[in-house]
């Protein structure tokens, strides 16, 4: 299948390095302490933050920092074909963990000892890039809740199909099976907090070389206090190492009363 036509346009009419349209709104859930709706094209997620508040389960209390919890859930109608998903399946548990770790990194948890912050993310529509959209939405919700943070995490994904790097994959491109990299960065601190490369592995030997390059890449951006999260499994990668360097997405936040205007621009590091 052809993902970029001879004119250089993708299936949805974007250029390979083009993001989908971003829309965001904060204060979407009246009862939450902070909330946001974030849309990337047809992907739409809603995030709500409750806390900092008293720890519900005393045994989980941490005496020198806040407990950050996260739950990711998908609406029944979020995917193209309707299906009822059981709660707490492996995929959503994994994404919950990714979001929790990413957000925990940017929250100044040491300022709120013996308290708990809950982040709930609900996918209303899934059209590729839900992971990134959830992280962006969670950041906005945390900012709306007034929770002290080091920086606002921003996230974006990129893939590699037909030997072309593509920014911000949609569902059709995502299901084509090429490698897919999600990056989360703290733009002001210039640090990588999330780096995830997903795809099936066919051969272990193929894995080693790219892993080394990725690790070097990660170390370059890894500074004290920032954990870089690596998941590498893939198929035929050499060329795909370019992908993470492409996924620099920087979002400029302009908080105006109750609306967030998001200006997105991408800095493409050529490899």
């Amino acid at each position: 299948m052809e993902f970029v036509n001879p004119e250089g346009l993708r299936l949805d009419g974007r250029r390979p390095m083009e993001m989908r349209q971003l829309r965001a709104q904060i204060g979407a859930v009246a009862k939450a302490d902070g909330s946001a709706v974030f849309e990337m094209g047809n992907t739409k997620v809603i995030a709500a933050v409750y806390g900092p508040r008293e720890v519900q389960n005393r045994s989980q209390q941490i005496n020198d920092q806040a407990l950050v919890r996260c739950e990711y859930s998908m609406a029944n109608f979020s995917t193209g074909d309707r299906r009822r998903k059981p709660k707490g399946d492996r995929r959503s548990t994994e994404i919950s963990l990714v979001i929790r770790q990413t957000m925990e990194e940017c929250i100044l948890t040491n300022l709120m000892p013996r308290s708990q912050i809950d982040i709930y993310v609900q996918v209303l529509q899934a059209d590729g890039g839900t992971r990134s959209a959830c992280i962006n939405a969670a950041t906005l919700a945390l900012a709306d809740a007034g929770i002290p943070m080091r920086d606002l995490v921003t996230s974006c994904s990129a893939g590699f199909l037909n030997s072309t790097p593509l920014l911000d994959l949609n569902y059709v491109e995502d299901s084509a099976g090429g490698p897919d990299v999600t990056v989360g960065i703290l733009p002001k601190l210039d640090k990588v907090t999330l780096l995830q490369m997903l795809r099936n592995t066919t051969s272990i030997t193929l894995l080693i070389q790219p892993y080394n390059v990725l690790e070097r890449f990660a170390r370059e951006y890894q500074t004290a206090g920032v954990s870089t999260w690596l998941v590498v499994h893939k198929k035929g990668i050499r060329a795909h190492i370019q992908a993470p360097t492409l996924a620099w997405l920087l979002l400029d936040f302009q908080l105006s009363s109750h609306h967030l205007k998001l200006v997105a621009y991408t800095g493409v590091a050529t490899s």
Partner: protein
Amino acid sequence: MVGLSLGEKHFIQGGIDQNLRSDGRKRDAYRPISIETGVIPQANGSARIRIGATEVIASVKAELGRPNALQPDKGKVAIFVDCSPVAEPMFEGRGGEELSTELSVALQCCLLGGKSGAGAGIDLSSLIVAEGKICWDLYIDGLVISSDGNLLDALGAAIKAALSNTGIPRVQVAAGASGDEQPEVDISDEEFLQFDTSGVPVIVTLTKVGRHYIVDATSEEESQMSSAVSVSISRKGHICGLSKRGSAGLDPSVISDMISVARHISEQLINKLDSEISAAEADEDEM
């Protein structure tokens, strides 16, 4: 989860006794209602409704399936409700399941007919494509995004709006298939059939707090309720479903009184919803 002090409880109850509730409403007044349709482009029909701080989304998806052998001339409709933890931390994990099931069952008995499919708000025979062979299965999903009481009325209204937003593709059944064979179908991409939603009832919940009952209770008021009666009423004034929640017993005469009050209120609610739905559809067409 509402934690109220004794003073707050007295204030809420006292306000209801004097027909002036904490937010300035009378006992029989709804909070402002706003509706947006077509919020889920991937669904056949969808709507979001806000009643005060309560917000729910309903989506309708249609799939081709086989009719039930006992009712070969009727389609199938299923209603599911999901309470998102976004609305309330209590709904985390499996915490929302009990409420979700309660709401799904209440909606099923308010909007769908009996086992035979008779008396349903949705005309099930309009869902049939080829009798005994192919029908539309409607999956109605409700999602609670923000919860501030009165979820059932909000879900009922959202489903009504989503159904009137629903377009079902026209299906051509290839002639020639005979006997037990499953006929081939051609689903149109362009032609959509609209539903007749005039028969879809609205749900009015009357919540009994102290000696009086109120409509459209907030979650603070609901925490003080002794019992609640939900009545679903069609435009013609017919009662389509009835359910009671809460453990306290009710005097039969109070129930019949509640039903007649609910019937009166439903007229205003239907008119309000209809005008909001048509405004939302007009907005959507403009976009």
